[in-house]
């Protein structure tokens, strides 16, 4: 077959197209690249500057406040182990990449999700795209970033953002769309503007679902940031990558465990952010009050 029909020079075409667009967009990509790499470096330097013991205390305290004692203990022990394994700096670097990626993904994903919730046409446009994105294997996302941003952390962030954004969009849309129609009617009936309805009713009620999306986005970010070691993202993924290349299973395991610990801490904390904040209810004195009224149907 290859004898009869010459091979289609697909690679050459794509290269040509890419080199055209990269040249075209190079002022933009260079600017983005500059901002991002400065941001990453600043963040990593800043976080590394904090002594590990202090960092552990701060992180455990935050975990306690948000997610309770168990998670706080998990976080403290886990990070102490990572420190002990000499993986502190890679961990900080991975964490920084995850946080920055998530921030960008959420900053883009929430508005898109809201738009898709409010606009049927945009919804039917974006839904198949999201479906398609979630069928692609993770490392496919690495490829297009390189021609624009080269090897390194910026490319890693770009592919991570794109890889991890679908749940942020999807669950924001879902959270808003599944709100009881009567609540929306109530909001309209009392004369709210579209913006008031969104801010005072739709987003707050959708918050638990939106936060579930953010949680998923964070977890996807972490997995992608690790994979992005292949294009020079460094961090814990870099440690794993290096260990694999040198056939040092032990070191690879250590870095792998550090990734798992980080994943567990991030997961437990962000799960609680959405769910725990709703209804800080005063159940305690509900009983005293019931005497004041004629209500006898208190359920």
């Amino acid at each position, binding site marked *: 077959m290859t004898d009869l029909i010459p091979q289609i020079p697909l690679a050459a075409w794509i290269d040509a197209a890419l080199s055209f667009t990269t040249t075209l967009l190079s002022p933009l990509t260079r600017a983005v690249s500059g901002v991002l790499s400065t941001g990453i470096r600043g963040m990593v330097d800043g976080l590394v500057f904090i002594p590990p013991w202090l960092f552990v205390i701060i992180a455990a305290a935050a975990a306690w406040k948000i997610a309770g004692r168990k998670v706080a203990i998990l976080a403290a022990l886990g990070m102490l182990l990572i420190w002990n394994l000499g993986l502190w700096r890679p961990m900080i670097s991975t964490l920084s990449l995850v946080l920055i990626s998530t921030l960008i993904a959420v900053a883009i994903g929430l508005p898109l999700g809201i738009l898709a919730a409010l606009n049927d046409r945009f919804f039917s446009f974006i839904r198949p795209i999201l479906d398609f994105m979630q069928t692609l294997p993770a490392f496919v996302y690495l490829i297009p970033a390189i021609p624009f941003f080269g090897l390194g952390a910026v490319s890693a962030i770009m592919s991570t953002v794109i890889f991890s954004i679908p749940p942020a969009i999807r669950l924001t849309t879902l959270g808003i769309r599944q709100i*009881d129609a009567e609540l929306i009617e109530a909001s309209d009936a009392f004369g709210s503007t579209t913006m008031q309805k969104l801010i005072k009713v739709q987003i*707050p009620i959708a918050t638990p679902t939106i936060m579930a999306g953010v949680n998923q986005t964070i977890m996807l970010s972490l997995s992608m940031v690790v994979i992005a070691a292949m294009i020079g993202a460094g961090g814990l993924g870099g440690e794993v990558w290096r260990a694999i290349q040198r056939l040092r299973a032990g070191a690879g395991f250590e870095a792998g465990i550090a990734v798992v610990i980080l994943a567990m801490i991030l997961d437990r904390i962000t799960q609680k952010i959405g769910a725990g904040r709703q209804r800080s209810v005063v159940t305690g004195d509900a009983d005293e009050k019931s005497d004041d009224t004629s209500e006898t*149907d208190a359920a």
Partner: protein
Amino acid sequence: MDDQTNEHEPKVKIKIENVFKIFGKHPERARKMLADGVSKDEILKKTGQVVGVADASFDVYDGETLVVMGLSGSGKSTLLRCVNRLIEPTYGRITVDGVDVVEMDTIELRELRRKKFGMVFQSFALFPHKTVVQNVEFGLEVQGIDAEVRRDKATRALDLVGLGGWGEYYPDNLSGGMKQRVGLARALAAEPDVLLMDEAFSALDPLIRTDMQDELLSLETQVKKTILFITHDLDEALKMGDRIVLMKDGGIEQIGTAEEILGKPASDYVARFVENVDITKVLTASDVMKKPTFVAFLRDGPRTALRRMRDAGLSGIYVVRQNHELVGYLSAERAAEAVKKEEKWIDHLIDGDDVPTAALDAPIRQIFPLVADAKMPVGVVDEKNILRGVIVRGSVLGALAERGEYND
């Protein structure tokens, strides 16, 4: 309604004229078929268009409670939502205080919803992330009213529905009845002219439901509102409504007072609708009585008493003490005699023994014989013998009598 003119013609608050709501892409087809008398089911089968409301026209008078009643799917909710345009009517005109609602742009409409309407929903529709008082002040909040002022008004609305002190709770902590009180308070907080209530009590247990009905009736005396009240329940309609609109398949079968609906059903459908209901068990004296607008006081002379009777076109009048405690009944005949004899007092003329009276909560079944026998209206008194109302023949009882329901 017929355009019967009399000097008491009430002010029209909401005017609904030939309103249609047809769900689907080809409303004009459905409308044409409706005009040809094709049924809603048939239209759906042939064209795929769902008839929500079909050619509804009626007036809602200022200050009245108008009940829209009909089976599930008859178009009640759709009609109600056309009034504040949560649903856009397909055809027709709706005016509120003479202003066309259908023509309004977004801003005017928003202003209308903020100022004129308060809405209460079947499943309460309280915002779960807001406390009770935050829910109640929602309407004021979106108007941009100062936080202190609106908290003040919301608190007062909560007091009004008997939920003072519950403001800081979340709706999840309240029972169904209490939730709907919050719903009611939220609708009242911005002091609108009109309450739109869509099956507001249908989700409540029967006992709580009766409570809420009574509560709303007593609220009406404190805050005068025009109420458009939707229910699928005839008993509730009879109890709450000054007038009742009966809907079927999106169209209006009959409009009238409880007496008219019961006594003169406009169609077989209405007759069948009302025949299954044992109203005699539902209604009490207080439901069917009229306000005792004309009474004579014990210290009035016969001349004054007689003038009152003439003014009201009565052949007799109830005599009460200063605090409205019932003394008895004075017939026009006797009063006229006393005038002739130039007597000064009426106390010795009053018939105090044979006066038919009933307690406020007496079931109307017990009142039938009284009304049938008595030559005078039945006086309704409370536990302190204060005259609270009168029941005259030709009210609900008359209507029931025509249906032969008292022959047992």
